[in-house]
């Protein structure tokens, strides 16, 4: 079995643009699920609206493609009604943090036993490139033509503060680490949140001077700071550059969880 077996072959090739990071993240998630030995009959994918949320339509399991931002509420209903099902949620940064912000913090608070993979491309890709709550300060998008004036969310800190059991962040460059992180998330009971920073060449990359897909991926690689290194830098008093982001397993704890398979 490989992750390829989980795809609906009659629906490929998919609608994603050339070089879209979402395809990579779906590969990694399916590879992790395949390693867990889960069966297709007992796995359910839930998603909201956006490029990331088109993913369940390409996967050969039961899936729920719901309204914008509400994926976590639907997933809560599925998991609580039938805790034997394995529920994985695909969302994007806008779907999760903007319209879905309230459901996000409550799902973390409840610590419901689902795994959320957030494909954070720092923009609203599907609708043409509007700013999102994670668009970095100063970046261009179609609704921030003079540079984004709002400070962005740190989704991982939000999840940790709200009570998630497992929080980790990787990028679309770090495929092997991402696959392992998703696997740990699937194994950990309680709310597992994996943020994956991805490139959006058509909306974000085009407006923010990443002319080649590879340039954007290189940017993601060079600006990611491993957690261990960040901790060392903090200890030694070194200043951490503002545009670096921390990757790795950021939170892992054992708070009481809801909806765990008995």
């Amino acid at each position, binding site marked *: 079995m490989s992750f390829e077996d989980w795809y609906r072959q009659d629906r490929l*090739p998919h609608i994603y643009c*050339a070089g879209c990071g979402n395809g990579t993240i779906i590969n990694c998630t399916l590879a992790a699920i395949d390693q867990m030995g889960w069966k297709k009959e007992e796995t359910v994918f839930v998603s909201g609206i956006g490029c990331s949320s088109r993913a369940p339509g390409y996967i050969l399991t039961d899936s729920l493609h719901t309204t914008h931002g509400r994926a976590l509420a639907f997933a809560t209903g599925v998991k609580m009604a039938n805790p034997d099902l394995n529920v994985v949620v695909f969302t994007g940064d806008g779907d999760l943090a903007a319209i879905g912000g309230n459901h996000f913090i409550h799902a973390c608070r409840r610590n419901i036993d689902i795994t959320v993979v957030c494909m954070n491309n720092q923009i609203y890709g599907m609708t043409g490139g509007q700013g999102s709550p994670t668009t970095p300060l100063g970046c261009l998008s179609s609704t921030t033509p003079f540079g984004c004036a709002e400070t962005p969310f740190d989704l991982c800190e939000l999840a940790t503060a709200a009570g998630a059991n497992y929080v980790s962040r990787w990028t679309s460059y770090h495929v092997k680490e991402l696959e392992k992180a998703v696997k740990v998330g699937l194994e950990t009971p309680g709310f597992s949140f994996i943020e994956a920073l991805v490139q959006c060449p058509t909306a974000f990359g085009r407006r923010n001077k990443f002319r080649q897909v590879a340039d954007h*991926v290189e940017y993601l690689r060079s600006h990611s700071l491993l957690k261990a290194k960040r901790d060392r830098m903090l200890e030694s008093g070194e200043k951490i550059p503002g545009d670096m982001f921390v990757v790795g397993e950021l939170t892992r704890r054992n708070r009481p969880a809801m909806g765990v398979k008995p």
Partner: protein
Amino acid sequence: MKLAIDETRCKGCNLCIKVCPYKIFNEGRKLNRKGIAIPELDRPERCANCRLRNLYGRQICGVCQLTCPDQAIHWIEEEPYEPHKVAIEY
């Protein structure tokens, strides 16, 4: 085994060229019928999975396959007696 890029799926993003640790890919020069330059295999003998998959019985490396956003990379068995370059490790 040998690496094959599915021409019906590849969209020419060239991410495989960037991520391969053994640098086996090179940018394509010829455009195919869809107008995409599929990456060429410059040094396929360096691919760890091609060489060692059958020996160890499991996937080795596979970063290009995981990274490819269009699921265009597969490994297929070679024909018997198909000529291919071999890299010898000391």
